[in-house]
């Protein structure tokens, strides 16, 4: 009969409750503290992004607390690993909101995870700022709780195509993008931008995550006679694509977006990525004072160069600190209002200012190229325009 099993269900629920009551004892709320929850992939395929984000946020929180940058409020930060999995990300966000009682969420990095988290933050009414997801579907939904300090892919796609057409005189392009949330949105935006600016898109192959052999697609691109390849994916993929295209004798101009902007790209790609043009929001060896200061501190603490995601996450904490100070409250609605009015900050990656969709339109968009072991700035574009 069912009884036997019903009992077992009972036990499990009880065990869960026990875990609940034991674990639930931790959270005590001191007055005048703002709790920030951070969700990101600290393990799994994109672990380097999540770990960079974590390091930068910890750095920013320590600094702000040391110099009382958020007025009377002390910043307290909670990190959760989502492995880049949307279900786990939603659970982690839930945990931060319900158990750690955070007032605001930073995260996630994968667009699919951010989208899943948005359901949670939206239902709970907690502001969420993603410093890593660039997919256009995130801000297209008109979710009032969501802000983005990563640069919108649409800006990047437009800027890149424009640069290719006007400066490099390229008329026929191919896109080569990852079949993941990031790449698929990039492909769509690049195609739209190309159409808008009258550039012919001759091929648009994709690849799946984890693919390592890109030669078949590169051969197709070659056959179609593209003058440039626009990549939209992670730096490991980009480095391999660059290498394999050179091996196949596909010596066309390569373009890329901020997702692959890491010094590792140059290390991994070697000669093949020399001359690659990509947009990014942050250059560690920039002469800008803010950048220099950030890089110096980050290096001192972690003995490595920060990745662009780290810079964006770092800025995000400063934006939150300013919003708390301005709102003088940790209520979600007050924080949200204060965030929408963000202005007058000069940070590492720009002068943040949110559009009514939640996009940061005060970002500097840097068009850079790879020269030797470094990125070299070609031109700075203000996304507000």
């Amino acid at each position, binding site marked *: 009969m069912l009884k036997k099993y019903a009992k077992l269900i009972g036990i499990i629920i009880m065990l869960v409750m026990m875990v609940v009551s034991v674990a639930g004892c931790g959270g005590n709320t001191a007055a005048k503290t703002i709790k920030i929850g951070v969700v990101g992939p600290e393990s799994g395929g994109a672990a380097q992004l999540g770990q960079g984000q974590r390091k930068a946020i910890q750095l920013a929180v320590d600094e702000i607390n040391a110099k009382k940058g958020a007025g009377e409020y002390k910043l307290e930060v909670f990190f959760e690993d989502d492995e880049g999995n949307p279900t786990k990300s939603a659970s982690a966000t839930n945990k931060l909101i319900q158990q750690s009682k955070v007032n605001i969420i930073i995260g996630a990095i994968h667009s699919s995870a951010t989208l899943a988290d948005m359901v949670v933050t939206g239902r709970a009414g907690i502001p969420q700022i993603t410093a890593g997801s660039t997919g256009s579907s995130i801000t297209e939904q008109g979710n009032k709780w969501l802000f983005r300090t990563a640069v919108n892919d649409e800006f990047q796609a437009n800027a890149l195509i424009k640069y290719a057409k006007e400066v490099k005189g390229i008329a026929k392009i191919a896109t080569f993008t990852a079949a993941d949330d990031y790449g698929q949105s990039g492909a769509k935006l690049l195609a739209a931008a190309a159409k808008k600016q009258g550039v012919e898109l001759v091929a648009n192959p994709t690849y*799946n995550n984890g693919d390592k052999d890109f030669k078949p697609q590169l051969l197709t691109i070659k056959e179609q006679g593209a003058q440039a390849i626009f990549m939209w994916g992670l730096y490991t993929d980009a480095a391999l694509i660059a290498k394999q295209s050179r091996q196949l004798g596909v010596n066309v101009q390569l373009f890329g977006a901020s997702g692959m902007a890491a010094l590792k790209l140059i290390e991994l790609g070697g000669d093949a990525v020399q001359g690659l043009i990509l947009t990014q929001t942050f250059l560690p060896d920039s002469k800008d004072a803010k950048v220099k200061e950030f890089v110096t501190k980050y290096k001192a603490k972690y003995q490595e160069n920060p990745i662009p995601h780290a810079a964006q996450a770092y800025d995000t904490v400063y934006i939150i600190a300013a919003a708390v100070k301005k709102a003088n409250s940790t209520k979600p609605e007050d924080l949200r209002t204060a965030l929408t009015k963000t202005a007058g900050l000069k940070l590492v990656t720009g002068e943040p200012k949110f559009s009514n969709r939640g996009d940061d339109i005060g970002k500097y968009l840097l068009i850079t190229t790879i020269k030797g072991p470094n990125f070299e700035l070609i031109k700075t574009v203000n996304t507000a325009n």
Partner: protein
Amino acid sequence: MQYFLNGLPIGAIYAVVALSYSLIYTSSGVLNWSQGDMVMLGAYIGFTLTQVFHWSFTPALLASMVVVGLVGVIVQRLILKPLRERKAPPINVVIATLGVAIITRNIALAIWGPDAQVFPSPVGDKPLQLSMISVTHQDILVVCVGILVMAILQYFLKYTKEGKALRAVAQDRRAAVLMGVDTQKSDAVAFAASAALGASAGILVAPIFFVTFNMGAGIGLKGFVAAVIGGLGSIPGSIAGGFFLGTLESLAGGQISSGYRDAITFALLILVLWLKPSGLFITKSRQKV
């Protein structure tokens, strides 16, 4: 032609990984899901030896095969042996090896970090342009070393005492016992040999693919698919399956659809399983190692 050529190096690697599956499957009937992570481990050890300790390629290859081979023995002793002694159902064995895969992968993440690492090709990756087609030195190296490794395996199985014992156990466990063969030892040898095979595949792909902690999952699965397409448990079948899968992927990716490339591979796999479960390249009764 170019598509076909491009499939060869990756095919060689699939073939080596497929062999490592076949070897364990025939000799001890175990479907070892941690095989892909042995590839990863081999790549990392090779990377560490060449890049951190500045060894040259060949000793690094050999050392990494030895170290990963030992890992294989440890896995056999600590996990497969108790499972066999307890006559565990096959599904438990599969899950245990999955557990090994999870552990190996995450230990690698803890040791070497999440970043991809460069493993420069020992011969450089400049392309050789031969009229319309181009291949790199590394590609040639992969195919050559891959074939060499397979030849060494073949030599080991054909001409050494332990190798022959391994085949004997695979073909008739009971009779092998009557010959005085220690089946536990030959299981361990099978695990060591197939882990070492995986390691060699890891070092070969490393310059092409970079080294990442999660590189094993994809290569492992493809190697397994190659083994089954060719005929799980057969050496010539596994090799043929590897090269077949490599070239098929190259063609499917270039000519049909890159996004659906793996879907095509798997659909073919299910078709092969359905119509000819013994493998495409095995003509008569299933041939064992």
